[in-house]
Protein backbone atom coordinates (compact mmCIF):
# COMPACT_ATOMS: atom_id res chain seq x y z
CA UNK A 1 0.00 0.00 0.00
CA UNK A 2 1.45 3.34 -0.98
CA UNK A 3 1.32 6.11 1.59
CA UNK A 4 -0.57 9.20 0.70
CA UNK A 5 1.73 12.21 0.67
CA UNK A 6 1.14 14.58 3.56
CA UNK A 7 -0.03 18.00 2.56
CA UNK A 8 1.40 20.82 4.57
CA UNK A 9 -1.02 23.62 5.10
CA UNK A 10 -0.01 27.11 4.19
CA UNK A 11 0.84 29.09 7.28
CA UNK A 12 -1.85 31.55 6.21
CA UNK A 13 -4.62 28.98 6.13
CA UNK A 14 -7.13 28.92 8.92
CA UNK A 15 -8.36 25.41 9.74
CA UNK A 16 -12.13 25.73 9.82
CA UNK A 17 -14.80 23.08 10.27
CA UNK A 18 -18.38 24.29 9.76
CA UNK A 19 -20.71 23.74 12.69
CA UNK A 20 -23.77 21.72 11.84
CA UNK A 21 -26.11 23.21 14.41
CA UNK A 22 -28.38 23.99 16.06
CA UNK A 23 -26.56 24.55 19.31
CA UNK A 24 -29.48 22.98 21.19
CA UNK A 25 -28.52 19.65 19.62
CA UNK A 26 -24.80 19.92 20.32
CA UNK A 27 -22.62 17.99 22.74
CA UNK A 28 -19.91 20.34 23.98
CA UNK A 29 -16.46 19.45 25.28
CA UNK A 30 -13.94 21.67 27.09
CA UNK A 31 -10.27 21.43 26.15
CA UNK A 32 -8.08 23.61 28.32
CA UNK A 33 -4.45 24.50 28.94
CA UNK A 34 -5.20 25.75 32.45
CA UNK A 35 -3.62 22.83 34.29
CA UNK A 36 -6.95 21.47 35.53
CA UNK A 37 -7.15 17.90 36.81
CA UNK A 38 -9.58 15.71 38.70
CA UNK A 39 -8.85 15.56 42.43
CA UNK A 40 -8.19 11.79 42.11
CA UNK A 41 -5.63 12.24 39.33
CA UNK A 42 -1.99 13.23 39.75
CA UNK A 43 -1.36 16.96 39.36
CA UNK A 44 0.69 18.42 36.55
CA UNK A 45 4.35 19.17 37.18
CA UNK A 46 4.11 22.94 37.40
CA UNK A 47 7.68 23.34 36.15
CA UNK A 48 6.78 21.71 32.86
CA UNK A 49 4.53 18.85 31.86
CA UNK A 50 3.60 17.63 28.38
CA UNK A 51 0.93 15.22 29.54
CA UNK A 52 -2.80 15.84 29.52
CA UNK A 53 -5.59 14.80 31.84
CA UNK A 54 -9.01 13.47 30.98
CA UNK A 55 -11.73 14.89 33.17
CA UNK A 56 -14.86 12.77 33.55
CA UNK A 57 -17.95 14.24 32.00
CA UNK A 58 -19.84 13.93 35.29
CA UNK A 59 -17.23 15.83 37.34
CA UNK A 60 -18.18 19.13 38.90
CA UNK A 61 -15.97 22.09 39.69
CA UNK A 62 -15.76 20.83 43.27
CA UNK A 63 -13.97 17.71 41.96
CA UNK A 64 -11.32 19.72 40.13
CA UNK A 65 -7.99 21.18 41.13
CA UNK A 66 -5.56 23.41 39.29
CA UNK A 67 -1.82 22.62 39.04
CA UNK A 68 -0.33 25.67 37.36
CA UNK A 69 1.76 28.44 38.87
CA UNK A 70 1.95 30.64 35.78
CA UNK A 71 -1.17 32.69 36.25
CA UNK A 72 -2.97 34.34 39.12
CA UNK A 73 -5.06 31.98 41.27
CA UNK A 74 -7.06 34.55 43.17
CA UNK A 75 -10.26 33.73 41.25
CA UNK A 76 -9.83 30.02 40.60
CA UNK A 77 -9.11 29.32 44.26
CA UNK A 78 -12.69 30.40 44.84
CA UNK A 79 -14.26 29.01 41.68
CA UNK A 80 -12.62 26.75 39.08
CA UNK A 81 -15.39 27.72 36.67
CA UNK A 82 -13.46 30.95 36.13
CA UNK A 83 -11.12 28.99 33.85
CA UNK A 84 -12.95 25.68 33.36
CA UNK A 85 -16.70 26.40 33.29
CA UNK A 86 -17.89 22.84 33.74
CA UNK A 87 -20.78 23.68 36.09
CA UNK A 88 -22.02 26.31 33.68
CA UNK A 89 -22.07 23.77 30.84
CA UNK A 90 -24.18 21.44 32.96
CA UNK A 91 -26.63 24.22 33.63
CA UNK A 92 -26.84 25.06 29.94
CA UNK A 93 -27.51 21.40 29.16
CA UNK A 94 -30.25 21.22 31.82
CA UNK A 95 -31.81 24.30 30.28
CA UNK A 96 -31.50 22.64 26.85
CA UNK A 97 -29.43 25.48 25.47
CA UNK A 98 -26.97 22.76 24.50
CA UNK A 99 -27.88 19.11 24.19
CA UNK A 100 -25.26 17.64 26.50
CA UNK A 101 -21.87 17.90 28.11
CA UNK A 102 -19.24 15.63 26.57
CA UNK A 103 -18.36 12.28 28.10
CA UNK A 104 -14.90 13.65 28.89
CA UNK A 105 -13.05 16.94 28.86
CA UNK A 106 -9.31 17.46 28.65
CA UNK A 107 -6.71 19.72 30.13
CA UNK A 108 -3.04 20.29 29.50
CA UNK A 109 -0.62 21.92 31.89
CA UNK A 110 2.21 24.39 31.51
CA UNK A 111 5.10 23.43 29.26
CA UNK A 112 7.77 25.07 27.19
CA UNK A 113 8.55 21.81 25.39
CA UNK A 114 6.61 23.01 22.38
CA UNK A 115 8.08 20.59 19.88
CA UNK A 116 7.11 17.60 22.05
CA UNK A 117 3.72 19.20 22.64
CA UNK A 118 3.17 19.55 18.91
CA UNK A 119 4.64 16.22 17.77
CA UNK A 120 3.55 13.89 20.56
CA UNK A 121 1.03 15.27 23.02
CA UNK A 122 -1.29 17.05 20.62
CA UNK A 123 -1.75 14.10 18.23
CA UNK A 124 -2.58 11.84 21.18
CA UNK A 125 -5.02 14.37 22.56
CA UNK A 126 -6.62 14.85 19.16
CA UNK A 127 -7.16 11.09 18.84
CA UNK A 128 -8.96 11.10 22.20
CA UNK A 129 -11.15 14.01 21.16
CA UNK A 130 -11.90 12.42 17.81
CA UNK A 131 -12.83 9.16 19.47
CA UNK A 132 -15.51 10.98 21.46
CA UNK A 133 -16.59 13.19 18.54
CA UNK A 134 -18.25 16.07 20.36
CA UNK A 135 -20.24 18.42 18.18
CA UNK A 136 -18.14 21.35 19.37
CA UNK A 137 -15.07 21.99 21.48
CA UNK A 138 -14.71 25.01 23.76
CA UNK A 139 -10.99 25.82 23.90
CA UNK A 140 -9.61 27.83 26.75
CA UNK A 141 -6.39 28.72 28.51
CA UNK A 142 -6.16 29.88 32.06
Amino acid at each position, binding site marked *: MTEKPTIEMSR*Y*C*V*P*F*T*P*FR*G*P*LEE*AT*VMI*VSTAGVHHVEDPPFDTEGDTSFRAIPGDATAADLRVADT*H*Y*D*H*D*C*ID*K*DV*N*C*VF*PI*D*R*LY*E*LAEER*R*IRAVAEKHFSLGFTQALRQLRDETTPRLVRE*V*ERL*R*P*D*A*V*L*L*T*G*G
Partner: protein
Amino acid sequence: MVGIPTVLVTVEPAESMQARPPRALCPRGFIAGHTFGRPRDSALQRWIIMDALGLLTAPPAPGEVITRDYG
Protein backbone atom coordinates in the same frame (compact mmCIF):
# COMPACT_ATOMS: atom_id res chain seq x y z
CA MET B 1 -11.71 12.91 7.72
CA VAL B 2 -14.09 15.57 9.00
CA GLY B 3 -12.88 18.01 11.62
CA ILE B 4 -14.61 19.05 14.81
CA PRO B 5 -15.78 22.66 15.18
CA THR B 6 -13.97 24.64 17.83
CA VAL B 7 -14.28 28.01 19.46
CA LEU B 8 -11.54 29.59 21.57
CA VAL B 9 -12.00 31.93 24.51
CA THR B 10 -8.78 33.85 24.96
CA VAL B 11 -7.42 36.68 27.07
CA GLU B 12 -4.28 36.89 24.90
CA PRO B 13 -5.77 37.82 21.53
CA ALA B 14 -2.50 38.81 19.85
CA GLU B 15 -0.90 35.50 20.73
CA SER B 16 -4.01 33.55 19.85
CA MET B 17 -4.22 35.08 16.40
CA GLN B 18 -0.84 33.58 15.60
CA ALA B 19 -2.46 30.17 15.92
CA ARG B 20 -5.11 31.15 13.36
CA PRO B 21 -8.16 30.12 15.38
CA PRO B 22 -11.25 29.34 13.34
CA ARG B 23 -13.41 31.13 15.94
CA ALA B 24 -12.24 33.13 18.93
CA LEU B 25 -13.72 35.38 21.58
CA CYS B 26 -11.79 37.72 23.83
CA PRO B 27 -13.52 39.19 26.91
CA ARG B 28 -11.94 42.62 26.90
CA GLY B 29 -9.75 43.39 29.89
CA PHE B 30 -9.94 39.92 31.40
CA ILE B 31 -6.69 38.20 32.34
CA ALA B 32 -5.46 34.67 32.77
CA GLY B 33 -7.04 33.21 35.87
CA HIS B 34 -10.53 34.46 35.12
CA THR B 35 -11.10 34.00 31.41
CA PHE B 36 -14.77 33.26 32.07
CA GLY B 37 -15.38 35.92 34.66
CA ARG B 38 -15.58 36.48 38.37
CA PRO B 39 -15.83 33.70 40.96
CA ARG B 40 -19.38 32.46 41.52
CA ASP B 41 -20.75 34.97 39.03
CA SER B 42 -22.66 32.32 37.12
CA ALA B 43 -24.60 34.87 35.03
CA LEU B 44 -21.38 36.41 33.70
CA GLN B 45 -19.75 33.03 33.12
CA ARG B 46 -22.81 31.82 31.20
CA TRP B 47 -22.93 35.03 29.18
CA ILE B 48 -19.35 34.55 28.02
CA ILE B 49 -19.87 30.86 27.25
CA MET B 50 -23.01 31.53 25.22
CA ASP B 51 -21.30 34.33 23.32
CA ALA B 52 -18.45 31.95 22.54
CA LEU B 53 -20.76 29.13 21.49
CA GLY B 54 -22.74 31.67 19.49
CA LEU B 55 -19.74 32.07 17.21
CA LEU B 56 -20.42 28.52 16.02
CA THR B 57 -23.59 29.70 14.32
CA ALA B 58 -22.51 33.26 13.52
CA PRO B 59 -21.21 34.32 10.09
CA PRO B 60 -17.73 32.81 9.82
CA ALA B 61 -14.77 35.05 10.59
CA PRO B 62 -11.88 32.57 10.58
CA GLY B 63 -8.63 33.92 11.91
CA GLU B 64 -10.31 36.84 13.70
CA VAL B 65 -10.61 37.30 17.44
CA ILE B 66 -13.93 38.88 18.37
CA THR B 67 -13.50 41.20 21.36
CA ARG B 68 -16.49 42.01 23.55
CA ASP B 69 -17.07 43.96 26.71
CA TYR B 70 -18.50 42.32 29.83
CA GLY B 71 -18.49 45.18 32.27
